[in-house]
C-alpha cells in the first residue's frame, strides 16, 4: 500500500530582498513527501536546503507557488495556526542544538509538552520514553552545558520526538559532531523513523548522513537537480 503524502509542494519560489535587489533562493520547486520517508535535501551551501526546510516547517512562507503540509497551505496560515501546526505536528532539530541553557535535560524535553498543556504525569512518562529512545535516561538532571555535543543533539532529538510529531525537520544535525556521534544520532533517527513511522527530512551535505537516507533530493542554486530513491539492499 502506498503511503499518503504529508507534504506537497508545487511551483514554489522564494525570493529575499538583498539591498535594492532580490535574491532567488528557490526556483519552481515541485515535490511530494510521503508519510514515513527518511529524506534528505542535499546540496552545497546556498542551494536553498534550509529555506525549503523553513517553509515546510511553517517558519517562512513561499513568495510564489504553494506548500501544503498535512493538508494545510503554509501561505494562508495565521501566526497562531502556524504555531499550532509546529507545536502539534512538527519537530525541529538544529545544527547548534538550540537547547535552553537554563533548563535541565528533562525540562528541555518537557518544554514541548508544556505548550500542549499536558499533565505532569503524562509529561513525565513521555519525556522518560523519549530520553530512553536516545539513551539519556541517566542525564535527566544535567544541564546542556554539562553534556557533550553528541549528547546535546540526542536531547534535541528527544525534544523533537517527545510530542510524537508526524514530521521531523533536521537542519544539518551532524554539522557540529564528530564521525562517531554523527553516525550515532542518524542511526537513532533512522530507528525512530522505522519504529514510529515518523517522517524525517534533513537538510545536509554530510556524506555520513546521506548514506542512511531513503530518498535524496539534490538542490543546486535553488532548483531540484535530482530526486532519487535509494535502494539500500542493492548498496549492501
Amino acid at each position: 500500500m502506498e503511503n499518503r503524502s504529508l507534504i506537497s509542494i508545487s511551483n514554489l519560489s522564494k525570493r529575499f530582498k538583498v539591498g535594492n535587489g532580490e535574491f532567488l533562493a528557490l526556483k519552481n520547486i515541485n515535490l511530494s513527501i510521503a508519510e514515513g520517508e527518511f529524506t534528505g535535501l542535499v546540496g552545497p551551501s546556498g542551494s536553498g536546503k534550509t529555506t525549503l526546510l523553513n517553509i515546510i516547517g511553517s517558519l517562512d512562507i513561499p513568495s510564489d507557488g504553494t506548500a501544503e503540509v498535512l493538508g494545510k497551505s503554509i501561505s494562508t496560515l495565521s501566526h497562531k495556526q502556524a504555531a499550532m501546526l509546529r507545536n502539534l505536528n512538527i519537530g525541529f532539530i538544529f545544527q547548534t542544538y538550540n537547547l535552553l541553557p537554563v533548563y535541565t535535560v528533562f525540562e528541555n524535553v518537557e518544554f514541548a509538552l508544556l505548550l500542549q498543556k499536558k499533565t505532569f504525569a503524562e509529561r513525565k512518562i513521555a519525556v522518560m520514553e523519549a530520553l530512553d529512545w536516545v539513551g539519556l535516561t541517566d542525564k535527566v538532571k544535567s544541564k546542556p552545558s554539562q553534556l557533550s555535543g553528541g549528547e546535546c543533539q540526542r536531547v534535541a532529538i528527544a525534544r523533537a520526538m517527545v510530542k510524537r510529531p508526524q514530521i521531523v525537520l533536521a537542519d544539518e544535525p551532524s554539522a557540529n559532531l564528530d564521525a562517531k556521534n554523527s553516525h550515532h544520532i542518524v542511526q537513532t533517527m533512522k530507528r525512530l523513523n522505522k519504529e514510529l513511522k515518523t517522517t524525517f527530512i534533513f537538510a545536509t551535505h554530510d556524506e555520513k548522513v546521506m548514506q542512511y537516507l531513503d530518498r535524496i533530493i539534490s538542490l543546486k542554486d535553488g532548483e531540484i537537480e535530482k530526486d532519487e530513491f535509494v535502494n539500500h539492499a542493492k548498496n549492501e
Partner: protein
Amino acid sequence: MVAFKLAFRNLFGAGLRTWLNVSVLSFAFVVIIFYNGYLDGWNKQAYIDTKDWEIGNGQLWHPTYDPYDHYSLQDAHAPVSGNIQKLISSDQLTPVLITQATIFPQGRMQNILLKGISPAQQIIKIPSKSLDTAGSIIPAVIGKRMAFAAKLKKGDNVLLRWRDKNGTFDAKEIQVVDVFSSNVSTIDNGNIWIPISQLQQMTGFENEATLFVVDKTYTAGNIDLWIYKDTHFLLKEIDDIIESKKAGSVLIYGLLLIIALLAIFDTQVLSIFRRQKEIGTYIALGMTRWKVIWIFTIEGSAHSILAILLGSLYGIPILGYLQIKGIPLPKTMDSYGITIGDRIFPSFSIGLILSTILLVVISATIVSYFPTRRISKLNPTDALKGKIS
C-alpha cells in the same frame, strides 16, 4: 506558569547583571516606602498633636475671626449666649478670647497674641490649670519657643500692654507660672495664655469669646452666630505642607526608580539582541510571538519581584527599627513654624506598602514590555540563525 519558571531561571542564570538591577530597584523600593512612611508618620503625629493642643475636635469661630488677619481681631468677639453657656457647663466646649498685646521683656518690645482660656478646661492640653492662682498678679503660661524668644522662664515677671474695648491702652505685669513644651508652634510662638476671666475684665469684653474649642462629644455644628470649623478644615495647612513635601520627595525617589527602570530596560534590549536564537527556538517549538513576548516581559518584570524580596530582607529590619525608635530631627526644625516633634516616627501602612509594590511591579512590567515588542517583527528564520538585525 512556564513563563514564570523560565523567567526566574533566566534571571538567576544571568547572575551579576540581574542582581545589580535588582539591588538598585530594591533600594528604590525601600526608599519610596521610607519617604512616604516618614511623611505619613509626620502627618499622623502633626494631626494628633494639633488636635490635642490646639483644635480639639473642631472650633466655633466668630464670623469675623481670621487667624491670618490680626487687624480684624479687634472685632472678632461676641458675647457667649445661653445655648453656648450650657455646652460650656457640660464641658463640650471651652471659650478662647484673643487680642493683640505687647510685652516688654528686658526693655525690648515684642508684639504677641494674648489668649484667654479657662483654667478649668480639659479639652486641649495647654496646662491652663497652672493659671488657677489666687495672687494679685496676672498668671501666664507660655510655650518653650516663646520663652526662648522672649528670654523668659518660669517665675519671671514681664510688663504687658494691651488696649481695652474703647481703644485705651493699659499695662500691668504678668508672671510666667508655667512653660509648656508642645510640638504645635502656632499655640506657642508669640502666644501668651492667661485666664479668660481676667482677659475679659482687662479688655472690657465681659463674657465674650473669639472662638470655642469643642470636644469629641460636640455634634451641633454651627450655633447662633458661631461658625463650626471641622478638623478637616483646620488641618488643611498641615495637609498642604505634607503634600508639598511629598511632591518634593517624588523627585528624589522618582529619579532612583528611573535609574533602576532604565537598567531593566537596557537589560531587556540586550537580552532580545543576544537571545535571538532562543526566541527562534521558542517559535519553532510552537510558541506564538505573543507568548514569547509574554515570557520576556515576565522575565523583566520578575526583577521587581526579586527587588521586593531583597528589599524586604534589609528593609523590614531597618524601617522597623526606625518606626520604633523614630528619626531625630535637628533643633532648628522647632522654629520653622510647623507642627513637628523632636523625633518623627514613620508610619508604614499596609496601603503604602501595597501601593509601592504595585508601582514597582507595574513600572518594571511596562519598561520590560516595550523592548519585547520587537519580537513581533522578528523573522523566526533569522532569529534561529542568531542574525543581529
